């Protein structure tokens, strides 16, 4: 475990700084934006798609089971990203309309 810490020091610093940054940037969000922010953050967590693509590249083209799982995971990741950003956009456009009225 100590070895792991020594080898990955930079990454651990990066993790800690990102954690605090993540908390700080949304600290002043007004209650009305809670749901759109949640939805937007949800879309960003779809960046797991990058991992799915990386692993799809490693899979042997003869291994049909893994290929199927991989295709499903890419599909799920894309759905998370695309759906997430589109639905956030729709929520926010509805806010715009409300203000005009």
């Amino acid at each position, binding site marked *: 475990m100590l070895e792991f810490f020594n080898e990955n020091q930079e990454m651990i610093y990066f993790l800690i700084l990102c954690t605090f940054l993540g908390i700080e940037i949304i600290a*002043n969000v007004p209650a009305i934006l809670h749901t759109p922010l949640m939805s937007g953050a949800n879309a*960003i967590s779809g960046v797991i798609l990058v991992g799915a693509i990386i692993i799809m590249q490693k899979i042997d083209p003869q291994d049909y089971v893994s290929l199927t799982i991989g*295709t499903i995971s*890419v*599909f799920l990741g894309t759905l998370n*990203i695309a759906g997430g950003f589109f*639905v956030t956009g729709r929520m926010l456009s509805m806010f*715009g309309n409300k203000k005009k009225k």
Partner: protein
Amino acid sequence: MIALVNISYLIAMLSFILGLKFLSSPSKAKHGNILAGTGMVLAVIVTLISQFFGFSVSINLLLILLAIVTGTIVGKRMSDRVEMTAMPQLVSLFNAMGGGCAMLLGIMEARLGTPPSSASLILLWSGLIIGAASFSGSVIAYRKLAGKQKDKRTRMIMYVSRILLVSFLVIPGLYLTNLLPLGLVSVTLILSSLALVYGILFVLPIGGADMPVVISLLNSLTGIATALAGILYNNTIMIAGGIFVGAAGILLTLLMCNAMNRSIFAVIGGKFNGSGVSSGD
């Protein structure tokens, strides 16, 4: 090629930071969404190019492209058709997709062969368990908000979920000390099915009115699963994106609890008598 990837990942990370920042201020929220979305598209395209550039077109690439195109179309359609009141459960459903992706990623990684160190195995399984629990939990949250699932609160659920929590520590421990006569793939499959059950039991007792808080919590869990997978692949954009969502999601969960005048423990415990939110004010 590596320089291109690194620079694009840096730009994508900045777009996530600014996107989240803008999303939390009413006047700029729309720009924030577009900015974060653009960064995401950049990250995905650059990853695709860097992974498949120079190789002949393989079935893997074709399947990825097919999945991305259908995923985009289905996602667009689902979000276009949804009604204003049904949006929170749709967010939950999309979050389930991300958790499912994290779970499948862990299974595929296990099928590829043993990762080198026990540290990476722990990362792999943590991501897998969190992803799977977030997947099934989000599906239950979706069903509750859609009115298809009622609250269930029994002692049985409480005991079983505690046993499951212990098993998430015991099973990997037994495997790593060579006491478990099972292969890596079977252990991974067992852990993911247990985590799926745990996710269901975690959300079942929680009241329907608290679902937005729970969705936010599960959302931040998906972020953490993403970050763990990112550490496994040493991929900065996955770590950064995942941790931002994880940290912001937990803060957002607490803020939502405050807005509802409830404590996070009362929500997770499924209590209603805590601060009396049910008697609408």
